[in-house]
């Protein structure tokens, strides 16, 4: 794959997170090897069996019994995650045609392609729960399911492509690494694959910003401006503060979520501060400082009213993103119909040929 032409690891941001992904993958393999007691004995209580599996940190698989609410929660979460990958192609896709070097253009194209691939894995994971991709896409296009709030912000300069890689992919990884251990097997496995590729994207974004921050004064200003605009929207990606988060408690009990929004946000801030120092960029928060007692950084919370406005459709690009997605879908309808008609004709011809052979024989 193109875009692989980077010096390995060195100051790789989030390197520790990748270690956690590896550990989760090893745990997954061990759990699979450690043959489960088998499916519940006939007549046994399926709910008790479900609870046992969750307690034992084993994986629920598609054919296992699960509470309806667990299934619904997962469908919603996985679908919204998939939608985010698909809508998330737009802000970066906006710069493919203008990327400032051929190498950067190749890396960006490969990244946007990876995101489409992540969308496909995730829709496939959601389909194991008994819902079709077409239905989920309809829900997105009708505005009945959401995608990540972050993709409603515009990419105004090339540095925004770097900021998205570093901060947005960085926040996504911090969010998703714990999901590599989530209780639903297909989702956990998809997350392992996604996290590995995302961490690669994050490093590429960081490299873009690093080059800009060490470039001409105009490039440095571009990098700082991008950080200024993307910092708080990235913090808001972790969702509302714990007190206001509606799905948290149940998701934690089911081991779908493993850390609260605020815990993950703190982890992200702690990770970014040092990286920003290496970049030579200033995080736009005058109250950001190390707290010795907590062994963590104090920081200013994002504006949650703004987050709520963006989620409810009033961010800078919500309308544009949805309009773009709907138009691509509508413009492609005749192509999908042609593919279906062609496949049906081919199948018909094959059947007719088979029959002729039978008659001849």
């Amino acid at each position: 794959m193109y875009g692989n032409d980077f010096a390995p690891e060195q100051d790789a941001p989030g390197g520790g997170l990748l270690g956690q992904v590896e550990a989760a993958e090893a745990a997954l393999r061990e759990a699979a090897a450690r043959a489960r007691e088998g499916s519940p004995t006939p007549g046994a209580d399926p709910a008790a069996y479900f609870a046992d599996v969750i307690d034992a940190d084993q994986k629920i698989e598609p054919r296992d019994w699960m509470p309806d609410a667990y299934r619904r929660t997962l469908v919603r979460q996985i679908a919204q995650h998939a939608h985010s990958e698909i809508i998330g192609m737009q802000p970066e896709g906006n710069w493919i045609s203008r990327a400032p070097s051929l190498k950067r253009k190749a890396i960006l194209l490969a990244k946007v392609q990876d995101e489409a691939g992540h969308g496909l894995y995730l829709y496939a994971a959601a389909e194991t729960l008994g819902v079709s991709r077409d239905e989920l896409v309809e829900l997105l296009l009708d505005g009945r399911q959401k995608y990540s709030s972050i993709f409603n912000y515009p990419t105004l300069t090339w540095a925004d492509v770097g900021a998205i890689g570093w901060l947005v992919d960085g926040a996504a990884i911090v969010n998703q690494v714990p999901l590599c251990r989530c209780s639903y097997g297909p989702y956990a496995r998809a997350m392992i694959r996604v996290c590995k590729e995302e961490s690669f994207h994050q490093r590429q974004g960081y490299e873009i910003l690093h080059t800009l921050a060490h470039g001409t004064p105009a490039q440095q200003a571009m990098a700082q401006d991008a950080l200024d605009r993307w910092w708080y929207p990235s913090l808001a990606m972790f969702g509302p503060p714990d007190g206001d988060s509606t799905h948290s408690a149940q998701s934690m009990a089911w081991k779908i979520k493993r850390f609260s929004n605020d815990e993950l946000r703190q982890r992200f801030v702690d990770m970014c501060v040092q990286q920003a120092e290496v970049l030579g960029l200033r995080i736009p928060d005058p109250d950001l400082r190390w707290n010795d007692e907590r062994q963590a950084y104090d920081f200013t919370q994002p504006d949650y009213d703004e987050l709520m406005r963006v989620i409810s459709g009033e961010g800078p690009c919500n309308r544009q993103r949805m309009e773009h997605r709907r138009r691509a879908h509508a413009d492609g309808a005749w192509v999908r119909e042609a593919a279906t008609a062609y496949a049906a004709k081919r199948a018909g011809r094959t059947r007719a040929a088979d029959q002729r052979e039978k008659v001849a024989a």
Partner: protein
Amino acid sequence: MNGPFDFTLALGDDALVAAQRLGEWATRAPEMEEDIALANIALDQLGAARLLLSYAGELEGAGRDEDALAYLRDDREFRNCLLVELPNGDFAVTMVKLLLLSAYQVPLYTALAGCPDERLAAIGAKARKESAYHLDHSALWVKRLGDGTDESHRRAQAALDQLWPYHHELFAADPAAPVDPATLRAGFDAVVQPVLAEATLTRPETGWTPGGGRDGVHTEHLSFLLAEMQVLHRAHPGARW
């Protein structure tokens, strides 16, 4: 055209401009699988362009690298064929264009793989495999569209009628070049004819045969494409990215 520099530059420009057009499809394809496929093909074309332009820069010996050649030449200095710079149009236009391009690039890169210039031979050997995939993909879609619904048939035939005149330029004779394009015509016909037949499409009569791309005389589309592609690079002279 004369000499390996012009030849290499022209092939690099074909691939670069094709990649730029294909990249415009990202996030707009008719289905998600196709978003991935088009990005993949754009990446292959861009990869070939980078190898060819880098080598052209070395042949020229004036210190121009792939980015100097891509970002700092004007449209009168570009040597791509007209076919690749035409707008994407609908999906049928894009797929017919890719069919014509890849049915030319497969025999071209195959011949290049056997040419005495080692660098060009290595590039040809790598790009040939990728072009074979582009040809499979576009041929399948041209058949699906041509032999799909009435609407898709109409659009595919319109695309073929619109683009067919531009393919003649690809085979203009150049006996001095490492691979004379005129020798590639038979390979092209052998691939394209059966695809059009299976797609139930009618091959247009030869009439108007536009050309000029190899001399830097382009359609009006190219300078817009370059304005967009080069805007950021040109705004920061000498910067590293």
